[in-house]
């Protein structure tokens, strides 16, 4: 049975964008330059906003428009802009981070996507919504975000990974459940904003204390005999 034929154009669009979101996550894993990493992240935010808007349109759900707006402003522009500014300020925009075992990471990422699909499989049978595949996609984005954090050493990359996890969550909320109650969404958005600010503050602190943003050098608090 062809899945696509059963869906309306909009739904096909949503699924297409979902695929793009996963793709951006893959891209993030592969970016060596911080500035292009942030750019990819911004693209992910824009795609997210687009999905939300599409959902709002298909389901005639006005409050999803608000969510779309929030994510557009926050994820698409504000946070990437803040991060870029910091990168420039710290003079890291030209820095190239050597990735650890890029092939393995990519293979693992592919496996994670499969794994998410496998985990979500029992749920797939439940949902009548066309967006049911969204759960698998968002889980994949979350896991890829974590993988990014595990595999990268730059604090900025960690923040981007963290934010991309949030994106995944947001995607799940929008696509699978037509958005959360408004109060929750605003709360989450607020938290993300504050978190971004706090991250910014921490960049300064970390740089002050270890003279770089390499998280592997944050290892004073260890209990292994040395």
């Amino acid at each position, binding site marked *: 049975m062809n899945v696509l034929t059963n869906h309306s154009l909009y739904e096909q669009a949503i699924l297409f964008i979902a695929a793009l979101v996963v793709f951006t996550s893959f891209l993030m894993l592969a970016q060596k330059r911080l500035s292009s990493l942030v750019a990819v992240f911004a693209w992910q935010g824009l795609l997210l906003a687009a999905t939300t808007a599409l959902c709002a349109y298909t389901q005639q759900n006005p409050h999803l428009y608000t969510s779309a707006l929030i994510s557009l402003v926050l994820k698409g522009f504000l946070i990437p802009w803040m991060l870029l500014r910091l990168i420039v300020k710290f003079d890291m925009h030209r820095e190239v981070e050597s990735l650890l075992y890029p092939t393995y990471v990519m293979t693992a990422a592919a496996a994670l996507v499969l794994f998410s699909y496998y*985990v*979500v499989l*029992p*749920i797939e049978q*439940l*949902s009548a919504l066309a967006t049911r595949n969204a*759960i698998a996609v*968002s*889980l994949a984005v*979350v896991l890829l975000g*974590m993988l990014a*954090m595990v595999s990268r050493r730059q*604090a900025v990359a*960690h923040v981007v990974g*963290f934010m991309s*996890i*949030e994106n*995944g*969550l947001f995607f*799940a*909320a929008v696509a*699978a*459940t*037509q958005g*959360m*109650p408004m*109060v*929750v969404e605003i*709360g*989450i958005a*607020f*938290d993300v904003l*504050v*978190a971004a600010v*706090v*991250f910014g*503050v*921490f960049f300064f*602190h*970390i740089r*002050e*204390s*270890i003279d770089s943003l390499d*998280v592997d050098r*944050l*290892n*004073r*608090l260890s*209990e292994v005999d040395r």
Partner: protein
Amino acid sequence: MTALYPVLGIPLLGMPLLALLGSIDKAGKVNVYLNGAGFLASLWLAIEVFNNGPMTVAAGEFRIDAFNVYLVVLTTFVGLTTAIFSAPYMLNETRHGRLTPNRLRLYHTMYQGFMLAMLVVLTTNNMGVLWVAMEGATLATVLLVSLYRTPESVEAAWKYFILCGVGIAQALFGTVLLYFAAGQIGTGGLGMQWSVLFEHAAELNPTVLSLAFVFLLVGYGTKIGLVPLHNWLPDAHSEGPTPMSAILSGLLLNDALYAVVRCKMLVDGSTGTHMAGYLMMGFGLLSFLVAALFLHRQRDIKRLFSYSSIEHMGMMTFAFGLGGPLATFAALMHMTMHSLTKSAIFVTVGHAAQLAKTQQLEKIRGLIKTQPAIGWGLLIGTAAIAGFPPFGVFTSEFLVLTATMQQFPWLTPLLLIGIGIAFAGLFRYIQPVVYGAVPEGQHPISANLWPVAVHLILVLWMGLSIPGVLSNWFDQATQTIAGSSPL
């Protein structure tokens, strides 16, 4: 008009107030008064609930029952006593030049912010709001961890932030899944409300809920400090200012566990299996044993006690996972006892570190000779937390043990070995700290030990005999969670 409004309103107003006043010398006092008012309000709330039973406020967005109201009282109480301790302590720190007035302002503001977040976590009926508030609590405390701006504290704060952030994100995924499951049965916008979910628990899809529980457990479990998600905890506890360690250990961990238990209730209702319980037992036991071993490798006094927190949280998680009225009762009691005792210990530890001018265990010596109140406070507190009767910690541990003995006899030796190892780990370090001769340059300081005395006396009292009101309360909470009563 219910007492919930003042309970939440006071810290809400306290934040801007202290943001204005936070840097002055009297700010500590203001903080005490605010918390005192909050405590009185929470008592009022407790009486309301006690008289009228569970209640919902604000269109079902807040729900107070026996389970959370007692945690509310506990939270405001520990908040109050810690504030009493913190007022002179933080002033002392400022005088010694470890803090600037602006950071003091930040500290006081965030203290209220943290209290607000904690109280919202407890009282809200909305799983989403719960998540938001939990994240809020992280945000409020993360800057406090790095308050001293030492390289270690910055590192600790960063780890705290990243790990809890990632963890809590997973909890959000779990929450979304919950909402998704609720959407399947057509609860609409109310699908985030715990009471609605609980009511329809049996109809919710068990597969989705199991998946959701995994996310929620890993997410909130990070905040509880379950091994292997615990790594941030000792760092954050040891590097932040001591009052913060006291409330982190005494309150934040409890509230995260509270969230997990709420989720477990939903999952149990849906799946009808023990899956959630087994997961919690596994994590609990692992945390308990690993933390007990970690105790043997400590050099920092606050780190030592933060591992002890992990150990006790492990035991509570284990007990909640065990389920059944006896274990649940025990876990509830253990939550209370651990909060009271551990925050009392952190208070004494803070004083001890202040008078020895270091947190290193090897350098703090002869506390009893230097300042008997602090030395004895620490020693008795340690004895209490190590589970010596007649302190209440023993009572709850005993109940956990016997509940285990009845359901999983072969696990009891593990628990007991863990208790023994943990005990040895605590006392091998604390004993030389409190006993012995006074090293040079260690002088008494002005200290306010009333909070310690009050906490320990409460713990002792509850160990000897649980007051009727309290046991009723625990009993009601047990009925809410486990469905039957141990009485």
